């Protein structure tokens, strides 16, 4: 796949993320974060990660966005401002410097790590997950169930 696709999708992802973080209105932040989730899901899908991309879109653009919207509706739209604008500008500058340094370092080429990947049978992703990583799925289910219990407990607390 050509570099232009990666460049365009990365630019869209960064712009939407920065817009979500720097926006003063929380509704604008929510909308741009939604677009950021969609863009990241599209990146995964374009680069042969269809299952991951679809799960990402369903989870973050769907469920988490609705959760955020519900929380915002419950607490109202508060005033959003950064702690100090100078600190925000300094952080943004530091981020740019770190990214430039990382890009300069990475331009030298990434080391390739040899591994036993050739021993894996050429199965589909779902089959691979179910055959070789059952504990991952079990742990995921446990994490999901535990978080749901915590959420239900927190929402069911009575006001003093």
């Amino acid at each position: 796949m050509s570099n232009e696709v990666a460049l365009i999708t990365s630019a869209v992802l960064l712009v939407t993320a920065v817009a979500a973080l720097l926006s003063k209105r929380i509704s604008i932040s929510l909308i741009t974060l939604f677009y950021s989730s969609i863009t990241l899901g599209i990146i995964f899908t374009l680069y042969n990660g269809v299952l991951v991309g679809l799960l990402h879109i369903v989870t973050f653009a769907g469920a988490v966005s609705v959760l955020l919207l519900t929380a915002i509706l419950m607490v109202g739209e508060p005033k959003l401002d950064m702690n100090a604008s100078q600190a925000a500008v300094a952080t943004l500058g530091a981020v740019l410097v770190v990214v430039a340094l990382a890009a300069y370092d990475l331009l030298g080429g990434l080391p390739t790590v040899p591994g036993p990947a050739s021993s894996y049978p050429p199965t589909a992703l779902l089959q691979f997950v179910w055959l070789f990583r059952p504990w991952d799925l079990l742990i995921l289910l446990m994490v999901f169930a535990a978080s749901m219990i915590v959420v239900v407990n927190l929402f069911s607390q009575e006001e003093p």
Partner: protein
Amino acid sequence: MVTDQLIFLVTAGAMVFLGLGSMSLSRNLIKTIMSFQVLVFGVNLALFASSLGGQFSLISNSLVLFSIIVGACVEAVGLAIVVAVYRKYGTLNPSEIRRLRN
């Protein structure tokens, strides 16, 4: 030579640092959760990009899958805590909450 992997890794690094910076500077708990979401996006992209053009795409996909579920669960719990804190203190400003608690 600039590759897709390099572009995505740099983007992921930028998103992680942006999320961390915004989390530390935010004065609103919902904005903090949003910053955490951007951080999770960066981590997911880095995990995914680390296997582009390599041999470990299946393991990378499994790790991204894991990260997506754990990130979503953490965000759900965080939002529930935010709502509970707002019910108790009536504000989402962490310093104001600290002052009211004292």
